[in-house]
Every structure is written in structure tokens, then in C-alpha cells.
């Protein structure tokens, strides 16, 4: 069907207000230069149903979008007919502070939601990159994690239920709005991190959390990753339950804290960061006595190395920068690839050393933030000379992670890689079941077909 055909058919079936026809606006939905035939901004789940039914009948590819912050997570689309802009579905459907439960439409911006929750001294532990722009739906669909997972887990631990539109154009749900529930299969667990490949998420139910008392932080600097990892291990073996524990390599320290936009509070700016040091950043909260205890114990563990304590004024902006690592790296180094790895905590240090030497050998710049629980983000920046080596470097990193019992995947692609074969990600033994699920949910492969090929190469 031609673009004009699609537009005219759409205008007959959907509320014309929800069709984005202005070419300039339409261009803003481009992914790697690919413009969709139409963009739709439905204001109700019923409108999504209509659009999906139409797309299914015509076998048009739909890519649901929130605030459009994460296009880089998917390969360059080969099929991209309709952009489904979810930002008009932005209602807070129900919020019961006394029950610590919340139900929101997926287009609600995270920062607006945070404001509403803050009014009741509550929050969602979704301290994710692009926080000021991202929507709840995009955040959940992309499965992006946050430093706070150390204490609060990830979305799978606090999403209670979901409503979504299936490829057959029906409204389905799973879970509920109570904090404990085993009624039926947890379909919503599949939707988290599925990048819109299984259905269009229209509503998400969460449990909310009481905002901790004041948040403080402690940063220790080390010559080597070994010593940073050693301290992280000692924290894990202690009775402390910090909000986050992150190992940051010297390049990432520089990106986070000395880059022009960093705007660190003055109290902090004078003291750090020292050059060429690894940092271990720990956030924690509690009443005064508890804070004292953390500081005492963390100082003890840090020993004679340089370390600073950040009080309730200084800590939050530093922790916020840390959680924005991905967006900051992308801002500073436009053509980068970001890899994400899962690693057993005791393998972190040797793995990080491996990756450091792999990227040094290929003259790539490498910025790393590694969560103490064993999740690592690597930003690799090639220069014109080293760019050709990038695929091999990625391959080597995959191998290094596999050899240490972990796994890695391409999290964010630079433009050059988006053109490359659908996926470089290693094959996994459970691909067969994933493929079957994708077929079951979306037999015509209309939902973000190329996003699925992020994991499964031959799925297009």
C-alpha cells in the first residue's frame, strides 16, 4: 500500500486528531533515516485497537514509541510503516498511596509521575537514563535497569500487572493491582523488555515505594579495578543494604563528572574526580544513625585510598548523573556502541580487565559502569582508524563474557552497526521458545519486527 493509501485509509478509521500528517513532524519519527508511512498518536486504548486491526489486516509494521529516546536500541528497521506514538495516553489511571499501588497509561512521562508520587513521599525505583524525557511505557518495554536495582530489583520485581493490545487487536491483561498475586500466567513479565515486539502496552500497574529518608553517597577511588571490586565484594558480605553499588572506570568517571554539562555542586566539584582512578560509588539512605554507620563502615573498607562522603545535598545529583550514564555517553561520544553484559559478581574484576585490554588493543575508548550485582554497561568509541575493528572487538567481548559464565548483548548500536547483519548477539539455547512466543503473540510479525531481531538473527 502506498503512503497516501495508508493515510487516507487511516483517516477514515481513526480520529483525525490522532494522525500526524505534517511532514516535519513525521520526520521526527525517523529511525536511522527510515521514515514511517504514517505516525499515529492515539488518545485511547480503543483507538490503538482500531489501528492495530488495520495494520494486521494490511500486514503493516508498527513500531510503538514513547518519547523516542531509545531508537538506538534497535537495528535499522527494514519494515516501519506506522509509528504508534503513545504519548497522548498519559493519564494516571489510579493511585492509591495508602496501598502503595499505582496504575498508569504507558505514555506518562517518568518525571511527571515522580512528581505526583513525591507528593505522597513515594517513588518508583526507575532511576533510568533519559529520565527527564522517557515515558513509563518506553522504559518498561525496553527493560532498561537502574542503579537502584541493588536494593529494589528491576521492573519484573515491581510491575504488578499490565494491559496491552494484542496483534489481533484485542485488549488483554495479566496480573492485577495487588502486591501479591498468582492468578493466571504472568504475561506481563514477557512484555517487560520485549521492546514492543509482543503487543502494545497500554497500561501498567506498579507497586510504589516509600521514599527513603535522606540519601547520602560515598565514593572511593582506586588505582585498579581489582581493589574497587574487592570493596564491592566486602559490601555484599556485610550487613549493609545500600541503594546502589557501582564500579566506574576512569573514562566513565571523567564523562560523568568532569564533562562540561556535569554541573556538580561546588562542594563536590573542588574535590573530584581524581585523574585515572576507578571509582566505587555507593548510595545509601536512612536515619542519621544509619548514615553514620554506613560512613564508618565504608571508610573502614576503603582503607587508605582517597574517598569522599556526599551529604544529602551533594549525593542526589551525583547519583542522578550515574544513572544517566548511557545518555551522557551518547551525548559526549556520538558514534558509540554500548554493550550490556551480565556477569557473576566474582567475575566482574577479571572480566573488566579483559575488556579493557581488548579495547586498548584495538585503540577504542572505553567507558564502563558496572553494577555490583553483576550488570555492566560498556560504551565503546571507535575513531576513524579503529572503526573497522569494532565488530571483531564486540565478538571478542562476547567471547570473554561467555568464557566467564556470563552473557553480553549489543545494547545500543552506532549507525554503522545498524546497517550490519541483523544481530551480532550470540545465539542462545532458548531462542526456539522465544521465537514460538513471538509467533503466538504476533503471527504476522507486525510489532516492531526489527527489534525482535536484536536477539534473534533470522527472525526478520
Amino acid at each position, binding site marked *: 500500500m502506498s503512503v497516501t493509501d495508508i493515510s487516507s485509509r487511516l483517516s477514515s478509521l481513526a480520529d483525525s486528531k490522532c494522525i500526524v500528517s505534517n511532514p516535519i513532524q513525521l520526520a521526527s519519527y525517523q529511525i536511522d533515516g527510515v521514515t514511517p508511512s504514517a505516525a499515529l498518536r492515539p488518545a485511547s486504548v480503543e483507538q490503538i485497537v482500531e489501528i492495530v486491526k488495520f495494520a494486521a489486516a494490511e500486514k503493516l509494521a508498527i513500531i510503538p514509541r514513547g518519547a523516542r529516546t531509545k531508537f538506538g536500541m534497535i537495528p535499522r528497521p527494514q519494515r516501519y510503516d506506522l509509528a504508534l506514538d503513545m504519548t497522548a495516553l498519559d493519564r494516571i489511571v489510579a493511585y492509591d498511596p495508602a*496501598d502503595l499501588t499505582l496504575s498508569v497509561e504507558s505514555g506518562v512521562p517518568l518525571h511527571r509521575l515522580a512528581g505526583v508520587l513525591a507528593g505522597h513521599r513515594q517513588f518508583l525505583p526507575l532511576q533510568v537514563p533519559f529520565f527527564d524525557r522517557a515515558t513509563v511505557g518506553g522504559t518498561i518495554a525496553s527493560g532498561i535497569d537502574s542503579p537502584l536495582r541493588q536494593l529494589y530489583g528491576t521492573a519484573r520485581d515491581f510491575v504488578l500487572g499490565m494491559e496491552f493490545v494484542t496483534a489481533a487487536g484485542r485488549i488483554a491483561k495479566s496480573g492485577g493491582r495487588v*502486591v501479591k498475586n498468582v492468578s*493466571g500466567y*504472568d*504475561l506481563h513479565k514477557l512484555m517487560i523488555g520485549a521492546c514492543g515486539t509482543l503487543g502494545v502496552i497500554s497500561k501498567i500497574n506498579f507497586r510504589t515505594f516509600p521514599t527513603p529518608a535522606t540519601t547520602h553517597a560515598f565514593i572511593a577511588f582506586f588505582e585498579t579495578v581489582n581493589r574497587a571490586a574487592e570493596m564491592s565484594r566486602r559490601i555484599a558480605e556485610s550487613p549493609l543494604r545500600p541503594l546502589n553499588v557501582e564500579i566506574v572506570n576512569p573514562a566513565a568517571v571523567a564523562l560523568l563528572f568532569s564533562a562540561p554539562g556535569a554541573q556538580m555542586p561546588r562542594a563536590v566539584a573542588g574535590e573530584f574526580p581524581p585523574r585515572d582512578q576507578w571509582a566505587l560509588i555507593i548510595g545509601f539512605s536512612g536515619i542519621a544513625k544509619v548514615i553514620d554507620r554506613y560512613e564508618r563502615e565504608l571508610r573502614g573498607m576503603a582503607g587508605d585510598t582517597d574517598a569522599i562522603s556526599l551529604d544529602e545535598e551533594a549525593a542526589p545529583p551525583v547519583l542522578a548523573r550515574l544513572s544517566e550514564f548511557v545518555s551522557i555517553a551518547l551525548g559526549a561520544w556520538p558514534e558509540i556502541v554500548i554493550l550490556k553484559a551480565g556477569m557473576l559478581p*566474582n567475575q566482574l574484576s577479571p572480566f573488566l580487565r579483559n575488556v579493557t585490554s581488548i579495547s586498548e588493543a584495538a585503540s577504542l575508548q572505553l567507558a564502563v559502569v558496572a553494577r555490583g550485582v*553483576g550488570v555492566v554497561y560498556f560504551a565503546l568509541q571507535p575513531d576513524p582508524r579503529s572503526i573497522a575493528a569494532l565488530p571483531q572487538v564486540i565478538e571478542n567481548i562476547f567471547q570473554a563474557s561467555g568464557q566467564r559464565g*556470563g*552473557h553480553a548483548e549489543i545494547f545500543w548500536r552506532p549507525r554503522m552497526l545498524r546497517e550490519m547483519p541483523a544481530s551480532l548477539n550470540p545465539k542462545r539455547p532458548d531462542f526456539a521458545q522465544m521465537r514460538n512466543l513471538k509467533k503466538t503473540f504476533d503471527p504476522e510479525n507486525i510489532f516492531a519486527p526489527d527489534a525482535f531481531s536484536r536477539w534473534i538473527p533470522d527472525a526478520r
Partner: protein
Amino acid sequence: MNPRLLRDLKKLLGADGVLSEPEDLLLYEYDGSVETARPDCVVFPRSTADVVELFRLANRHKTPLVGRGAGTGLSGGALARQGGIITSFARMNRILAIDIENQRAVVQPGVVNSDLSAAVAHLGLHFAPDPSSQKACTIGGNVSENSGGPHTLAYGVTTNHVLALEAVLGTGELVRFGSAALDSPGYDLTGIFVGSEGTFGLVTEITVKLIRLPEAVKTLLAIYNSVNDATETVAEITARGITPSACEMLDGWTIRAVEEYVHAGFPLDATAILLIEVDGLLEEVEDALLHVKEVCTMHRAREVRVARDERERELLWKGRKNAFGAVGRIAPSYYTQDGVIPRSKLPATLRRVGEVSRKYGLQIGNVFHAGDGNLHPIILFDERDERQFRDAVRAADEIIDFCVHVGGAITGEHGVGMEKDRLMPLIFTETDLDLMKQVHDVFNPAGLLNPGKIFPTSKGCGEIYVRPQPQLSSPPARA
């Protein structure tokens, strides 16, 4: 049953690996629920390879396969509703690996929940999900039901602690989902599998997280003269954002049943008690305890006792964890329900439970995970009286109906099984159920694994299965 299948099973597992005599099967007609169903035989695999082969045989003979852990399930999950082979994991009960540094354990499904915690206690670790049945139930059962426990309130349910699974699917494939390292790429297959009630696959190996034991724990008993005051305390604790690690409630009738059996030190004349625990750093615990006490007192607790030492603490928990056993001693039959509601609705819901009890003239005890809003009304009846049994089920349905009405769900932790399949339409539409069925078919296309569970069957709503006389508790026949 098919003699060829039986012969093949014995060839695979040895004569002592298969039970098929009617008297041997009796035990396996029951689990912890009020349902019954007769299997054709029971088998005891020793390895994953046995389970793979077992599936092949069952598939060849188109015979259902039903997994079974300890049979403590409360929704008939482990019963062979359509006959077939019960696969008991009693002999696959080894802890395969404990990784201290990474705080992981790899276990076979038949490992008893509390055995894992006991095995790692000296390392300062534990497996956090702690169903009240933890001394008997298996981790395979926990995974299948996504079980919770008193400490779920702070630590989460089973799914929050399972990292990877090995299973034989209903397609016959041996698969591994997830990994010991976090965030395996792609769909969260572990997440969808946990809680699938044995309808996706037979679990043969489980990788779990181990959690560090807290530095300090304080357990407090708040005693009330009114159920309402106790439930309002819980609502207020939640609303204030205090997160105890456990918050359990027992009503007066249950307290007396428990005291007689366990002597936990619960006051016999109380109308309700709350058992509240806080844990963490010493400094945190002291502070949280103060807040909890304050809320209890504000809501007219007549007394608040803090366990002075580990012995007192254990005694209080013994009282809680043996409540069902205590009830079982005094009542010929009881039906444990499992509804879940928003916590602010606790006072209204407990009032409703009281009304239902009066309406049917049936004693209903309450002992439950109050902090999660997870109710367990225990409805007493005499199963020799068919009318009473029907009334018990009606009373239970009315309570569940109310839970749904106030925004809750039909089961918080015991599962749907064959008990609540008919109630699924209370919360799910045909579309929801269709999609769930399609997902079921991805893993279990021929429906060979645990058939007749979760999805509503054609059984009409008014029609209720009446359990036959329980042969187990009847006097042995004269020789």
C-alpha cells in the same frame, strides 16, 4: 493402566521407582487441598535424563504427566485430575552447588525449602521465600506455584529469587531458561515459567539467589480486643510507608486453636494478634520498632510484647507456622482460602468474612499474611455432611467475590490449580484467557503436562465436586 507403559516405566526407573498398586496410590490422590483425583501410577525419577525419557514414554502413550513435590499444595495442583502418571521429585532432592561468593545455589526440584536455608545458614545466608509449609514443601513446588511466605512482604515471592531453570517442556525439549548472571537477553522465560503450576514443563534444576541474613531482627506481638483495630493497624503501617519484614495476623478463634497445640504464649482471651517483624541494621531495627509500636498503640493494641530472645521469637513463629496443623487437630475438615486485596481494604474484608461466617453458620478462622493483604480464611466443615461442604465452598466463593470486588484477585499464593479454574472468569476476560491458553500451548502443545488445571473447564458454576470420605483418617479396616 496400559500394561506396556507400566512395563516400560519399570524398565526405565526400576521396580522401586514405580508405584501402581491401588493402596500405594491412595496417598497421591490428595494434596493439601480439599480436592482428590486418582493417578494411574506414581514414578520416582532420579535424574534429568530419567525425566526426559519419562516424557518420551508418556508422550508415546498419550498419558498425562503431573509433577509432584511434597504434595502440600492447596489448590489441587499436584493431583492427576485426568489420571496418568504422577512424577514425584522426592528422589531428586540434592543441593547441587552452593556459590558463596555470588550468593547462588543450584538445587534439584525435590529439595525441601527449609533444607536449603539450613544448609547455608552457617554462611550467613538463606533462601528468602518461606512458605509456612517450608519444612515439607519443595523448591520445585515453590517454583511452580510462585509461593510466598510471611517474609514475602520485604523479600518478595519465589519468582524474585529464581534466576534460571532447567525443565523438560511439554514439547519434550530439555531447556534452560535464564542464567546465574542477571538479565539474560531476550524474553523473560524464567519469569513466565515461575508460577505456571506445572503446566509448562517438569522442572529438573533450579538456580536461586541466596540472601544475606539480617544483622538484627525484632519480633513483636501486638494483642487486640478487636479484629478491626488489628486490621486498621496493618493499613496504617502500610500507609505510613513502614516496611516490616513480616506482618501476620491471627484471629481469636485461631489463637486458641494454636495455643492448645503449640503453647506459643498467645493470649487466649485476645480477639486478634499481629505478629510483626522488622529486620536490617541494628540502628534501623530499633527505629522501625518504635514506629511499629506507636501505630499499634494508636490503634488500641492492649499490649505490645517484643520477643526478648531468639527462643521467644522462634516460639512466636512456631505458633504462626503451625496454625493450619493446629486447626487440623480440632476440625474434621477445613478449607483454606487464599484471596488477596489492597491493604487498605483489610478492615472491610475481614468484616465481610465475619458476615459470611454467620450467614452459613460455619466457623471461619483467619490466619494470614496481613501485610500483603493476602487472606487465608479457614472454613471449617464436616465433610460427611454434603450440605456443609457445599456451604463451605459457597462461603469461600463469596469471600473471593468480595476480594475481587474491592480490587483484589482470586489467589495470592496458593495457585489456581483445579480449585479455582472456575473462578478465573471473575478477573480475566475471554481474551485474557485465550492468550494465556495460547502461551500454554507454546510450552505444552498437546496438553500432556498437568491437564485440567488453571483454565475453566465446562464444569458449571453451581456444580461442586464433593470429596469422598477421606480414607486416610478413617480407622484401619479390620484385618
